[in-house]
């Protein structure tokens, strides 16, 4: 089936098999390998992308379901490269919100979606709002700090 969707602001059109998962479309058809596959069972959140601005797990969405919609991957957050990172990415860097980095693309996009819905979250809001994303390195504290900082709230360094 032919699908046509917007990925990071660019119109993309491809003939795909209905069973192709969105994450595989992004990684193998478009070559956007910033989106990681972690558990492959919609648990870990490593494959989180935005569809029409809302976080979703792209391992549990068919590419055909995204036909006509607007998808944002981690590459789309900083089209200008490391010198022009998204505020959430900046905050992750400043507050050491990552170690190995595997969960980070999904974690950042989940945080972007969270802040779009709740621009001034409490620490509790952030912890619950990131329940769909697992990190095995940081213990989450610095991720939570980074998200609070990205929302413009003062946090301890």
């Amino acid at each position: 089936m032919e699908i046509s969707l917007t990925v990071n602001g660019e119109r993309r059109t491809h003939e795909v098999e209905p069973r192709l998962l969105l994450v595989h479309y992004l990684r193998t058809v478009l070559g956007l390998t910033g989106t990681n596959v972690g558990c492959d069972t919609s648990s870990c959140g490593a494959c989180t992308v935005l569809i029409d601005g809302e976080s979703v797990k792209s391992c549990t969405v068919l590419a055909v379901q995204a036909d006509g919609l607007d998808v944002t991957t981690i590459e789309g957050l900083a089209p200008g490269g490391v010198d022009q990172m998204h505020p959430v990415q900046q905050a992750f860097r400043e507050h050491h919100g990552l170690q190995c980095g595997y969960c980070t693309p999904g974690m950042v996009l989940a945080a972007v979606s969270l802040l779009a819905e709740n621009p001034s979250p409490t620490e509790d809001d952030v912890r619950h709002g990131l329940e769909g994303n697992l990190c095995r390195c940081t213990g989450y504290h610095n991720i939570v700090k980074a998200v609070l900082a990205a929302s413009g709230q003062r946090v301890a360094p």
Partner: protein
Amino acid sequence: MIPASFAYERADSVEGALALLAEHGDEAKLLAGGHSLLPLMKLRLATPSVLVDVGRLDGLSYVVDGGSELRIGALTRHHLLETDPLLRASCPLLAYAASQVGDPQVRHRGTLGGTLAHGDPASDLPAVVLALGGTLVVRGPGGEREVAAADFFTGFLETALSPDEMLVEVRLPKTGDAGWSFQKFNRRAQDWAIVGVAYARGFGVGLVNMGSVPLRATAVEAALASGASAGDAAAVAADGTEPPADLSASVEFRRHLAQVLVRRALQEAGV
């Protein structure tokens, strides 16, 4: 993990979806948010040969005041349920329980109708709709029919829906300021409930994951009706249930949890 091959059809109306179901028979499955069906297909536990995508039927995404009851479209996503002002005011048990489903990503995609039609006893919202005595509106080739929630869940992942029918709406009573509680016990934040309890005062008690179907705790309801205290009513929470044993919990642990969680629910609701 990749699903087995299937043909994909996108419905642009309920009538269109029903026509596709009629054409393909029980080889077809309806796809709403896909957050119950696609994981099963990836594990090859479900291998429908045709998926009929109803996920674009935005006309079935709504929460409206139907006078004496609330009417909720089957394709209303969990995220909308948890944030909808009317639902939060008129039926806070469902709005809160929706906020406890999975995680934000799951709630952005999963729908009320999808989780009910999937009929998983471990899902949160079937027990809520059951506890509230909701009515499910089903459309098929012969027109529309109403099914009481108590008659809807017929077996493990089985419902009263025929292969050629589609759930289109859920009707729930307005609970107003009646006390309510939703208790969900799990080990991982985003996981299914090991046991869950939904309660609204004056309506009913629903149990999550205490049998092959979502259940009403009828013994608790009877005890409450005869004036039992929260503690005494909760003591019979596992009566008549046949909970599963799995890696998360034994049968005995689930029976114990049901009693503890029903007591907490009744107390939180002010019994």
